[in-house]
């Protein structure tokens, strides 16, 4: 059984036919060939597949296609065109927050969701906001530093829409 589905993806309207229970993760990676969203566990535990759906952070492995009707989805492929990304990228570079890179796209979207909620977070709030995104390389410290730095350097930016 396939259903017809319309939603916004990275600023563009999309209509497609798919199985209702197909995971958004598979939809993105297999059907739409957007492979920036990674699969680390398939169980919602690692956050490598985190995307934004209506501004909320969700794991694409837990979201079936059927619930996407009318939603606004942002993946790393869209997010990387935004002003917010530019700041986070520069701060991730300054802090040295990327190693193997597999958690990075999900981590960035978690950082975006967090900064949108708390534009001036404490270190503790940053950690809590990233708690669903596993990283095995960095021990998180440099990622936390990067997000704190982004809050400072991008002040004001997280109260404006991402523009997608």
């Amino acid at each position, binding site marked *: 059984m396939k259903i017809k589905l319309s939603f916004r993806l990275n600023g563009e309207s999309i209509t497609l036919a798919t199985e209702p229970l197909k995971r958004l993760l598979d939809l993105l990676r297999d059907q739409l060939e957007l492979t920036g969203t990674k699969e680390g566990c398939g169980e919602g535990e690692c956050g490598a597949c985190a995307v934004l759906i209506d501004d909320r*952070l969700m794991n694409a492995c837990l979201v079936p296609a059927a619930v996407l009707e009318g939603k606004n989805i942002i993946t790393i492929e869209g997010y990387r065109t935004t002003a917010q990304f530019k700041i986070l990228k520069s701060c991730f570079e300054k802090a040295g927050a990327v190693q193997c890179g597999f958690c990075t796209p999900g981590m960035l979207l978690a950082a975006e969701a967090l900064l949108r909620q708390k534009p001036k977070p404490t270190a503790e709030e940053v950690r*809590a906001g990233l708690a669903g995104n596993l990283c095995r390389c960095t021990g998180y410290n440099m990622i936390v530093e990067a997000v704190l730095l982004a809050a400072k350097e991008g002040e004001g930016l997280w109260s404006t829409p991402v523009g997608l």
Partner: protein
Amino acid sequence: MVNACRPLSLEEALVMRSREATTVFAGGSDLMVRYRQWSGVTPDFSGTVLFVGHLPELQRLDREKDTWKIGAACTITQILQAQGIPDHLKLPLLSMASPSIRNVATLGGNICNASPAGDTLPMLYALDARLTLQSRDNARTVAIADFITGPGKTILAADEILTEITIPPGDWPRVYYKKAGTRRANSISKVTFYAVARFDGDRIADIRMAFGAAAPTVVRNPAAEALLQNIDKNQVPAWLETLTTHYADALRPIDDLRSTGKYRQQTALRILAHFLRRELA
């Protein structure tokens, strides 16, 4: 062959439910894992999946006088962000799962899962939450303690949907919650304890205590709570032994891959003792 139905109203959902065997899908944070297959293969639900997460009738989240009415499909995040939501409702939710899971997991889902380790359950038991179960032709209200009958088991009938959770009024100046998990965030509970109390001067006017992950269902012991009723809070330690005995018999924790029955039992009782000795007084 998997069918899926995304009704536009609760009524439509209930009609669907009355006609065939369906799996009710609210947030999906549990179901999508339970039925997952290989990456790239659509999860293997059998029968018809009935999506209800989007239904406005299940999204209510408001206070009528001092009674909280929470739609079953409200996500944990929605509840945490609701205007005026009291601390005693927030506390267990804050340490539940991770931000991205809290954004999809629903209160109704956590209840219907009926996991002994369900993080919202001790709170709901302690607060005497009532559940509205609706079918096409009927609606009934049951206490949460009567709703969950065992691990993964509830009295929800095949044609019913849990629509609303009602939290009776209660002003709880003392709230205590302790969770032991596999790590500090995004972890499954090994044992949890939730308690609320209200005082009349130094006397305990009302007290509720509930244990999670320590038995097939949440453990609450009204008889033990009654013992503390009207007791001066400074006298509580004297009752510790009696209470410990009460609860020690009721706790029936298991060994599993996350912890041991012995740890769960002892930790639950240690937390109880700490609460009565230090947190209550």
